[in-house]
């Protein structure tokens, strides 16, 4: 028995349309005549036929599912599937469950997530959105930096915008991911998204308290692994967005610019400014860059100090970036 639609009586009334009809194609995709891709050609030939006639029926749902299984990036198949679901007044929550496996299997494909976004919009239920966040936890466990999954998660939060059911646990979620991997930049971005970019969370109304909390958090994370670009970028983000001068952080940053951790006898315990761990590889390039920027922002007599650090970075500590913004600054300060 063949699985081809060409041999299926249910599809006998449809005339398939082949892709390269009446043309001599350049750079065609070479579908093998044997399995496994002959079914793809067969299915897409029938799909082109139903798009042409505008058919929206249960068998079209089966057909588009077949195509999507073989090629999850086939956006026309997704689009036609969505239109058909709406036209048939299908149970969209059932569609979500049906698509769970496909989402996990093809999580790097944008269309998978766009389809779910359309479904969630149409269902328009906070309960379903909350379940969806749970589902995304599972997905992100497999690939903690999956771009489209993160972007979709953030869309759900902003679109349904429900503090108690959706936003409430997000900062803790990002924090758990950072506990597991403090270098996960997606989790840092998510924290910034939740705390600063999307408005004010319930309980976060006191912005000065939020500023202090976030600075304390990022300092602790820098202390654990000082050469972590994600944490330094977060620190810069907090400072810029809360309009905190870089100057305010220099007593924290300075020990990270030394070539060694202070000797235990000289160590001053300052809970607000945690020191690098003993295994830290110093000096930390990001700390040097930070100090230079702080000096430059201070201006006047401090500028030569900035220039000195830029030269140290360019010539020795961070040679790959010798041509970057620092050179630009240097030219501007001449």
């Amino acid at each position, binding site marked *: 028995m063949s699985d081809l639609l060409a041999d299926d009586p249910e599809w006998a009334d449809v005339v398939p349309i082949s892709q390269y009809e009446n043309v001599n194609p*350049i750079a065609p995709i070479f579908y093998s005549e044997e399995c496994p891709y002959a079914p793809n050609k067969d299915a897409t030939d029938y799909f082109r036929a139903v798009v042409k006639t505008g058919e929206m029926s249960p068998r079209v749902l089966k057909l588009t599912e077949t195509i999507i299984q073989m090629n999850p990036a*086939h956006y026309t198949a997704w689009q036609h599937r969505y239109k058909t679901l709406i036209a048939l007044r299908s149970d969209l929550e059932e569609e979500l469950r049906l698509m769970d496996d496909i989402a996990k299997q093809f999580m790097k494909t944008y269309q998978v997530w766009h389809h779910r976004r359309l479904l969630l919009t149409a269902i328009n239920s906070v309960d379903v959105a909350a379940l969806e966040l749970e589902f995304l936890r599972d997905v992100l466990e497999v690939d903690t930096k999956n771009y489209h999954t993160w*972007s979709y998660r953030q*869309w759900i939060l902003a679109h349904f915008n429900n503090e108690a059911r959706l936003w409430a646990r997000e900062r803790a979620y990002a924090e758990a991911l950072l506990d597991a991997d403090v*270098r996960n*930049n997606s989790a840092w971005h998510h924290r910034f998204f939740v705390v600063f970019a*999307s408005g004010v969370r319930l309980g976060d109304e006191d912005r000065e308290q939020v500023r202090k909390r976030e600075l304390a958090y990022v300092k602790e994370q820098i202390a654990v692994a000082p050469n972590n670009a994600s944490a330094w970028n977060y620190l810069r983000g907090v400072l810029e967005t809360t309009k905190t001068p870089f100057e305010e952080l220099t007593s924290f940053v300075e020990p990270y610019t030394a070539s060694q951790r202070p000797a235990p006898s000289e160590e001053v315990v300052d809970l607000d400014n945690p020191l690098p761990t003993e295994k830290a590889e110093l000096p930390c390039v990001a700390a040097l860059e930070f100090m230079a920027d702080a000096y430059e922002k201070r201006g006047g007599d401090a500028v030569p100090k900035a220039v000195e650090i830029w030269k140290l970075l360019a010539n020795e500590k961070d040679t790959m970036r*010798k*041509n970057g913004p620092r050179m630009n600054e240097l030219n501007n300060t001449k």
Partner: protein
Amino acid sequence: MVNAYSPTPIDGYSTPTSTLQASTENIIRSHIRPEGGAQPELQKRYHFEFLLRNLRQGFPERYVSQDASQPWLIYWTLHCFSILGAGLDDQTKKRGIYCLLAVATLLNLLTPELLAGVPDFLATCQTYEGGFGNASFPGWAFEADDPESETGPAKTYDPSAPRPPLGEAHGGYTFCATASWVLLRSFIDLYYAPAIQSSAVSLPQKPHIDTRALLRWCTQMQGLPIELGGFKGRTNKLVDGCYSWWVGGCFVLVEALLGVGAHSEPSTEENAGEEEGQKSWDDIDDSLFDRKALQEYILLAGQHPAGGLRDKPPKPADAYHTLYCSAGLSAAQHRVIPSEPRRKAVISAWDAAQARARDGTGFRATSEAEREKLDALRRQTCAHVLSWAEEEGTELYVGGATNRVNATHPLFNLTTTHSDTMMAYFYGQTFPSRHFTPAKK
């Protein structure tokens, strides 16, 4: 001084990110050219054969996932021939807004309606890191009217509401946003309020992006010497050959936004004396990234021994990486930047009536003032796009001139010959010759 090829410091604290990073560095370091070793060679013949195989025999069946994206396969292949130096015709397509803008610019389809709200939207996609994410919320905030909106019931947009970017800063989206921003500059100048608002007409406020933060982010994406100076697409992710173009290609765009380095003003002479003291380290070249290192990454790690280019060893080559590694190599060899003399030459030869007649949108202006403004938008945008030209005497070929590939237009990733020809046709213009040497003092 630290070892030039020190691994990324992990501070004695390893996490999944640093473990993956370390194993990648171990693979890439084995491709470092030994001291005194042979110069790296661009295996043009093998890459041609790879491209020709795809073109003549078709793509192997693993490309079935590209079934719905065949124009891309054609573009990647054909444009790559152009870069590597074999003449073939061209075709273009890109992503989202950038795709739309590039096409609308090339094909004379620009109208204020089409562009309304686009700069504002782009500006909200910049993240705290300086690069751009893939969208911002709400996506519909800047759409004038969209009855078939996917957002369901109509919503009213509160302009004071937060507009968070969705997704972290990413090389692909950063390129698209930056190129779009550059393409939109004339539109912003003409259709938004100047810094000092004249009270007569109310125009929207100019949106703003942080160009310095953008430059810093792009610079941070270049890997360490142990990663051969390839580019990453996000903070703490791995280097990948395709970002040679998406991020490496961004620098001249950022430079244009910063207004540095353009061969417009005869300023070199007066600065010459001041630069004396800096000679030790800034006489290498005046680009904002390490062009030599990027070429080394592509030549040493990016080439698959059997032809075609790739993400990183030991991955196979594919059509997408073959183009974007080649384009990145081009961006590292040539400095293509806006030339003010060329821009002026295009403006003075501009035929507004022809451009208006060939407008492909059927846009109906309601007043003569509006029509003239649109004429100006076409003229300024075209003149800017056409002004991009290679800066003479700045080419740099790692491994010697036999590794030379052709220059490509930073805004479109098409050769300038192709973009010039397309625009001459769609705007009904005869552009002044490209063999135009900017006046040197």
